[in-house]
């Protein structure tokens, strides 16, 4: 087995939405710095944007400001959000969007050349090739790209993150990348719960099934402070394809209706905005209809013209082509019948909700030398694509400044040796023909525990103390089982580490859900033993830190700070 030892000023782990923009910003500000992207797939089509995007969903359309955006995001997150983070990212929406437009992204403009708004925060794009466009910019800027190298753990020296280790999924080399500063941008985590579809459609998920929480897990193992994992993301999506509904709901103004044709959001949730209620309520509302026997639930599109239906299909082709094929294969015309919806598996994704690293306004994590950007970074929901870009830029600026005053750290050989053994153990188990566990079997075991005891779709995403305790106990046995994982090849080795990482995320998630004794985000995390929102006791962030020595997960809270004045439960 060969070792690749690389030294770089800044290491960016994850060449996706946030990572590519971070690389460009660093090279523009500091042309002499060496910048390396470690990417587990190929940057041209990796991460969430592989399939494309049809809109930028976080943009300040005319009349809107960072303050008005922050107010809206605070409302959408049920009154609790890191306002400093939301403000700082929204200040960079225009900077990043204009930049990517310059690189070649087609953005829809009116005859005067202004972007065409879709709602307060959205503009339409033809983003089928969005990912290759930003990847090319990162390459052109001079970043060194390590494709097909998956990160497994940080290098730690004297309490500082000094790079990362990983392995090449195409060459099997052990990678040691020493860095003065590291930006983690690996995205969120899918596949912790049972997927919506089974069998050969198990990966017919909304969130990228290849985002498996590596960055969270590496931070958890290193003892980084994490926040708000209990704010899971459970999205309202088109039934079966799990395609985004914003394209329909915002694109053609389609309200939710139940099987009786009742507009239940308008009827029951008018006090918080009806069909414009905070995102968790737009999942919670339909779930209650289904639970109480008034399903299926639909987005009512029957008022749209056949031209609008064509435009809708065009929009999906830019982002989610299977939606269009699904309609053709099931003889569905959205202008003649409503579009059935369902809720997703629970994802941990800091770009939609706010689960992730606890960071300061510069996106510095609780550990020196480590910055977090995009879905892996916490406290700032509603990032979507442009917010991840903005965070990449912010983290890059801070990391670029940090590397001016530090050198490379010395890493003890024992650390490298131990990680190499841990990483390749599943391959050795195969070579030695040991009896063991296939990655898929372990994934199913983890998903079964989470689904049944930690608020999966089967239990309407509801949790209580007792159920969570069962989940905690069963999950606690899993780390001892990692030694039995077997991988026949490098692809399976990657899959083995993907399940290992998700178990770490699941353990922290269960602790978070157990700690917050209120229901702040119904639909995302509904506690049947604490059903109400409780601002008196729980208007604060639930944070965690796993002790790397003992493995114990310590839970604590951090205060909420209101920066933008106004009613926290109003969108304006």
């Amino acid at each position: 087995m060969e070792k690749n030892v690389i030294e770089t000023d800044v290491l960016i782990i994850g060449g996706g939405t946030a990572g590519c923009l971070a690389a460009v910003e660093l090279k523009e500000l500091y042309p002499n710095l060496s910048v390396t992207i470690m990417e587990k797939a190929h940057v041209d089509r990796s991460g969430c944007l592989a399939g494309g995007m049809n809109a930028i969903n976080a943009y300040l359309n005319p009349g809107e400001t960072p303050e008005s955006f922050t107010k809206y995001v605070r409302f959408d997150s049920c009154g609790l959000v890191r306002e400093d983070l939301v403000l700082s990212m929204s200040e960079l929406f225009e900077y990043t969007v204009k930049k990517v437009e310059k690189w070649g992204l087609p953005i829809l403009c009116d005859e005067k050349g202004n972007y065409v708004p879709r709602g307060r925060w959205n503009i339409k794009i033809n983003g089928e090739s969005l990912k290759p466009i930003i990847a090319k910019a990162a390459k052109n800027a001079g970043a060194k790209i390590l494709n097909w190298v998956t990160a497994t753990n940080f290098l730690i020296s004297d309490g500082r993150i000094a790079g990362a280790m990983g392995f090449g999924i195409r060459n099997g080399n052990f990678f040691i990348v020493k860095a003065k500063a590291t930006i983690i941008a690996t995205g969120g985590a899918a596949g912790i719960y049972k997927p919506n579809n089974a069998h050969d459609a198990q990966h017919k998920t909304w969130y990228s099934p290849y985002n498996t929480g590596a960055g969270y897990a590496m931070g958890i193992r290193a003892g980084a402070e994490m926040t708000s994992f209990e704010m899971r993301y459970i999205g309202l999506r088109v039934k079966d394809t799990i395609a985004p509904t914003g394209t329909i709901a915002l694109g053609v103004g389609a309200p939710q209706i139940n099987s009786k044709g009742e507009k239940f959001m308008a009827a029951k949730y008018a006090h918080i905005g009806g069909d414009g209620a905070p995102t968790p309520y737009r999942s919670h509302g339909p779930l209650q209809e289904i639970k109480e026997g008034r399903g299926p639930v639909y987005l009512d599109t029957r008022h749209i013209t056949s031209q609008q239906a064509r435009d809708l299909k065009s929009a999906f082709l830019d982002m989610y082509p299977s939606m269009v094929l699904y309609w053709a294969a099931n003889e569905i015309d959205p202008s003649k019948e409503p579009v059935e919806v369902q809720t997703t598996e629970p994802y941990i994704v800091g770009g939609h909700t706010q689960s992730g690293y606890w960071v300061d306004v510069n996106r510095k994590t609780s550990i020196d030398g480590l910055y977090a950007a995009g879905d892996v970074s916490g406290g700032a929901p509603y990032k979507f694509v442009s917010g991840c870009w903005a965070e990449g830029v912010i983290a890059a600026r801070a990391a670029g400044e940090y590397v001016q005053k530090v050198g490379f750290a010395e890493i003890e050989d024992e650390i490298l040796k131990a990680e190499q053994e841990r990483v390749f153990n599943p391959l050795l188990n195969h070579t030695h023909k040991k009896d063991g566990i296939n990655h898929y079997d372990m994934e199913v075991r983890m998903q079964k525990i989470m689904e049944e005891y930690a608020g999966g779709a089967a239990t309407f995403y509801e949790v209580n103390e007792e159920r969570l305790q069962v989940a905690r106990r069963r999950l606690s046995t899993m780390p001892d089982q990692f030694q039995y994982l077997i991988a026949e090849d490098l692809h399976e080795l990657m899959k083995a580490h993907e399940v290992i990482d998700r178990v770490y995320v699941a353990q922290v998630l269960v602790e978070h859900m157990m700690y917050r004794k209120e229901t702040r985000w119904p639909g995302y995390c509904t506690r049947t033993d604490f059903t109400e929102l409780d601002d008196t006791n729980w208007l604060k962030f639930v944070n965690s830190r796993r002790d790397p020595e003992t493995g114990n997960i310590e839970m604590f809270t951090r205060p909420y700070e209101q920066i933008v004045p106004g009613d926290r439960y109003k969108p304006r």
Partner: protein
Amino acid sequence: MPVIIHTDKCNECHGSTNPPCVRMCPGDLWMKDPKTGKILMRNPSDCWDCLPCVKVCPQEAIEFRLSYQLGFQTARLLPHIHDTRDFITWELIDTKGNIDKFTIRTKILPVELDEKIEGVTPDQYAI
């Protein structure tokens, strides 16, 4: 099975050691069969239906199919990249054989037929 490969159309990109479909899959699913040199998908049930492999294939040899549990045969969706690379025409065929076409603006970047991976020899791709 979410994607199928039309072996009559696939020319393995003229002996490319690392063809575009193999490079562009975000899930590391496409590979060259070490024995035959043909392109194959490791585990079709791990496919996300994201389509970079379909769009990048110069021979249009890879076709995307809905898992049968989600939709009936023989609906098809075929993207055709214009030579100018600034438009895609999507050909949609429903279960009755009716054809509909959608032409959409884009910005396709050129993709090489092969790309060397640093420090890797071709026989190491599949282990």
